[in-house]
């Protein structure tokens, strides 16, 4: 990544903040590996402990907007997936990764503050 492009990427990422819960969850899910829609939904359900279940309309509506915003890319099905040719895989972009970093940094500092001020019970 060239030093000249990095500020531009940061600028663009900042403009997308704050991320909605659905966008954040999808980015988080794609940060570890490329997944298809069903895979994302299952992953989100798992790492939120079942508290967040993305409905199909919300999931694919959000995916569409994230594609438009270039937070993620879609890939043709990898050759290995013989499951179902309809499935499309999604991959997080540099912009998406940056937006995720910025958002989680912000959240982390928020959580830190909360803990320092004993707003959270568990210290």
């Amino acid at each position, binding site marked *: 990544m060239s030093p000249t492009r990095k500020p531009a990427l940061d600028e663009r990422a900042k403009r997308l903040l704050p991320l909605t819960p659905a966008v954040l969850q999808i980015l988080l899910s794609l940060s570890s590996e490329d997944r298809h829609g069903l895979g994302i939904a299952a992953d989100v359900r798992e790492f939120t402990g079942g508290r967040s279940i993305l409905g199909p309309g919300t999931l*694919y509506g959000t995916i569409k907007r994230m594609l438009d915003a270039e937070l993620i890319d879609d890939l043709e099905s990898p050759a290995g997936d013989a499951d*179902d040719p*309809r499935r499309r895989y999604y991959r997080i972009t540099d912009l998406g990764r940056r937006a995720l970093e910025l958002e989680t940094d912000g959240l982390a500092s928020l959580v830190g503050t909360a803990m320092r001020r004993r707003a959270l019970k568990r210290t």
Partner: protein
Amino acid sequence: MRLSDRIFRGLLLLYPAAFRRRFGGEMLEMLAARRDAARSPTAWLALWTGVVYDTARSVVRERLPVRRNLVESLRQDVRHAWRVVRRTPGFSVFVILLMAIGVGSTTAVFSVVHAVLLRPLAFKDADRLVFVWEQRHAVRRNTVGGHEFPVWKERSRSFEAMAAIAFDRDFSLTGAGDPAVLNGVRVTSDFFNVMGVPPALGQVFGPEADVPGRGDVAVISHRLWTERFGADRGLIGRTIALNDRSHIVAAVMPPDFQFPANGAGLAPDLWTPIAEPIHQYRGRHYLFVVGRLAPGVSQVQAQTELASIADAVAREFPPNKDHRVNVQPLQSELVDDVRNAILILFAAVAVVLLVGCCNVANLLLARATARQQEIAIRAALGAGRLRIARQLVAEAALLSLGAAALGLFLAAWLVDIIRSAVPGQVPRLATVAIDPAAVAFAIAVAIATTLIFGMVPVWQLFGVQVADRLRTGNKGVPSPVRHPLRSVLIVAEVALTVSLSIGAALLLQSFFKLHRVDPGFDSADVMTMGLTLPAARYQGAVHQRTFYIDAVERIRGVPGVESAAATNMVPHGGGLSGIAIAVEGRPSPRPGEEATARYRVVSTEYFRTLNITTPRGRTFIAADARSAVPLIRWFEQQPLPPRFAESQAPPAAVINETMARQIWPGEDPLGRRFRVLFSPPIVVMGIVADARNAALSDEPVAEFYLSDLQEPQSRMTLLIRSRDGDAVLPAIRAQIAALDPKLPIASVRPLEEVVATNLAPHRFISTVMGGFALIALLLMVAGVYCVISYATAQRSQEIGIRMALGATRLDIGRLVARGGIVLCVVGAALGLAGGYALGRSASGLLYEIQPADPSTYVALVLGVLAIAAIASWIPARRAMRVDPTTILRAE
């Protein structure tokens, strides 16, 4: 496809097309996976509420992507509404259930209307297809004579093609598995041009097949091809044995081509050419004529042209005087008989929906009233009225989406019931399904009810004075309640219920009357068994006669059989046989004014087997056998039967009492003679009691019976009286197989079942109407009860004061109940008018009861009022028991 998949697909239609194309497949897959994972009822409920919520939310977002602010506030509305709906689950579930009943049953009946009445026929340019009937005086739909069709076809210029159809022959298939009777029709070769449907395989027959004697070719249905011949593509060009003659299979039609259905509503298995000199069959009315109008020619133009051709035919052939032509669109002809019944059901179900909606509006209204303070606070905090209204509508919208989803399940269940409950009489009923049109309809109904009934409380809220409401605090409404809107809803509910109950009561009474009609014959313990002798092995009337005499004789010898007979037309089995007769010794009537009578051919034991009494003369005996058979010649050029000149038994007829009265009024018919078409004079030997042979609702008509010893038939139905039921069947089959092992038996049914099948449409429509009326009644009771209880609760302060001032308990009871009862009386009065309208439109389905039957009206109004009075009295009684001090202290 599973029902849930269909619903998912329906929901997908709400999204923009591009979105659907891009993500639809994956969304369906995801939903299917979740559906499969949801095993318990709770998980199932959670899934569907989640789906509805998710769809509502994301559809709004995808459909309105531009105006972010609006989208955001709409999302807030939906979210807020979702919270409200979840906060009061009991209320929400109740409202959803109420609306789902309405939406579900309306959607089910709509899908019937859509499949049977609205959807275009699956033929090319179906709007150009017409039926052409002969019209004679009051009879608007007569089958067409052999001398008419060829002339119409040759001289008219309004038609691109015209074809004749004849249902006059059974086809038995042998040499391909068990012998079977097929439902075949005979058509002229233009039939396939008229319908405009190419075969799925092979080539249909052309004009060369119309040449008399060249008709040994068959086009078969897709069903026959797959079920009998294993979908063998090599079948084309091979021969199959139909009625023991080989026919070349020319083509296989596509699966959805099922025209024309026969009288019992069965789709044909095969089409063969008529291939006979049709024009020679003067006066033989056996053809159904279909035509394809030439482009740009209207039905009226075709009618006008054919009318002038019919006039020309009448000049050349005087008996045709007054025979006119009646051109009707094919689609409306196919569904003509059932259109009225279906539309009445639709009206009835709409009434149920409306009553349900009145209740829902009442509930929403009551809740909105209770929430007036909350609303006032919001208004004080700066919420615009529009915004508040939007929230209320959003709540109603969520409820109605839930109702639509649940309603679709109900509709699918009802559609299954409808499909299995109504026998073959309704064309295209088998194709009824919850398709995208039905889903769209359910959602449209849900949205419409939301907008209308969700707006009712909104309207009310627009009158709220913020300051007033905040001042009166939690007590709800300050002054005695005067809710014109609620009163209107109660009046409407009662009116709708009374009209529907009247309609249902009329239909039910007429069904019971019909059920009790004495048909004039005894159908208990009689089995029917259809047989058709193939022409190739039973050439000539004498052979056919011998077979049936032997068959009846052998069956009579089977242990357990009390008597056995044969007839060419089983009572209530469909098929009419009106024929012109000429009475000897009377001046020949003017053309078109001949007396007509129905006739059937029966064996000697027929009257005894069906317990039909013979008041005068005798029925047929073995000595009636003639050597010169048959009696009736259908056209003038038909040669006389062999041995006609020999001395033998005279032609004999047995007539019914109606024929005796109509044809020989004030005379003794015994010994009189009449001719049928070109028959020798036939002597009246006996008079039997009238029987309703066509339908229970039809008054007996003039009818005569001929003996099968004189007029043998190839197609007969055996009637077997036995108390042992099915137990004697194997022995009977063995006797028939002993006579002819290759002969298929078409159908074995109890005669009682044949009669009941005829009643099935009456039974169905009156049961369904009764069910709808009952649902409406229950909804109405619930509505009246809720409203009166609610109003009473709100008036508790007033009641307390009145009692403190000396009003007796009875006074209070009257005060409370009176309001409800007055509304019910007004509603019932309006309902009478509605009931009359419904009865009038159903008058074609009524039997021996007038649409304005006074006792029905009085009984129903009193009944509904009594029920409404009870529903109002219960809350009134509660009000009477109130202790005034408790109430006044609470203030």
